[in-house]
């Protein structure tokens, strides 16, 4: 049976790439053989940079196929897809808590976007006219 570890139990903030790398090393202290299930839910913040840090370490160690990321959060799964899109040489695996089998992550398209060059800032693109005095910020 695979070892299951919750990312929040690794004892590092789940933000920034260096913390992701640190989380990998904390994970390795508990995970000494076989495969591991890393549950990504249960933390208030989980940045793409953090996930990328973990994946970079797993990639360098050749261990990605031994890890299954588990999440019930669509947003987190989308982030994993974007990380997969950044590392097309890698295969990441994910499943929902309710699923039995893991599946390979479909890498999200990582497109280069252009931006229209405008002669001036123009009119405001979103409603941001000064709020009335009665609606000043709190």
């Amino acid at each position, binding site marked *: 049976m695979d070892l299951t570890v919750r990312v929040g139990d690794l004892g590092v*903030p789940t*933000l*920034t*790439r260096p*913390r992701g790398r640190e989380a990998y090393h904390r994970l390795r202290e508990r995970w000494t053989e076989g495969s591991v299930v890393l549950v990504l839910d249960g933390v*208030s*913040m*989980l*940045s*793409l*940079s953090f996930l*990328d*840090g973990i994946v*970079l370490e797993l990639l360098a160690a050749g261990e990605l196929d031994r890890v299954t990321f588990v999440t019930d959060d669509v*947003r987190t799964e989308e982030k994993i897809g*974007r990380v997969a*899109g*950044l590392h097309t040489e890698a295969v990441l695996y994910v499943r929902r808590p309710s699923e039995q089998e893991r599946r390979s992550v479909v890498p999200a398209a*990582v497109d*280069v*976007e*252009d*931006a*229209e*060059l*405008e*002669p*001036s*800032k123009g009119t*405001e*693109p*979103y*409603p*941001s006219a*000064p*709020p*009335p*005095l*009665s*609606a*000043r*910020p*709190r």
Partner: protein
Amino acid sequence: MNSLTFFNVDRLCASVDLTKTPAVIDLSAVDFFEPFALIYLGMFLRHHTAQGVGFQVVLPQNTKARNYLTRQNFWQRFNFNPATLPSSLLQRMTTATSLNDIVDIERRAGIAEEVAQAVVDVLCPGRFPLVPVDVGAVGEMVSELVDNFALHAHGPLAAFTMQWYPNGHRFDLAIGDCGIGIRRSLANNPRHRAVANQPHHAAALLAFQPGVTASLAGGGTGLWEVRNAVRRLGGAMRLATGDGYVQVWGQQMKRGQMAFDLTGVQAEIWIPVRG
């Protein structure tokens, strides 16, 4: 002029004669400061004060605007050279206690997660969020932006602020520094040396591309991910660096020229919130 915003703060700064002693900043007609303008003006003051410019400010005639700047210690906060201020004094300015506070951000290890957590603690002090916004997503965006400052600005201090407009169904946050700016930061990377000869807005656009500063250690995903998050939340983003800017709204991205060339990076994110 009534509100000082992204659309006019650069013109205000461009109108200041920096060759005069003191250089006069006229805020008499301003009755409201949007977060971007607050941070931009702060960075304008901080950068030029470090260059030895002395300022005289004509305060807003509007009492609320004037009192807001006083409550935020605006002049003390920005009218100094952060390279010479004792670290112990800086630390007293780095704790956000509520919305609308201006928070100074020191460049040191772990600052991104500290500021992100502080923002989350302000937005959600108890079981339910104070502001009806995706607090976790806001914290993640703040983490990416602060990390960008810590990694790339090569300046000692940034500033951050946020505002919630309940009747306007809107939440804003802004962060800025007067470091080396995006163009110079990218040009220091051997992959992007050619950007040194391009306009600032072209360099800013490049910074939004995923993996722009990627190395064997990874990286270069901060602004790209912030843009993804802004789009998912249905919001918008404005970023200025040098005399260039990029605006993100929906699937649109636009770039262009600011009226003033201010070193560093200043950014604002707007998120619509439920009523």
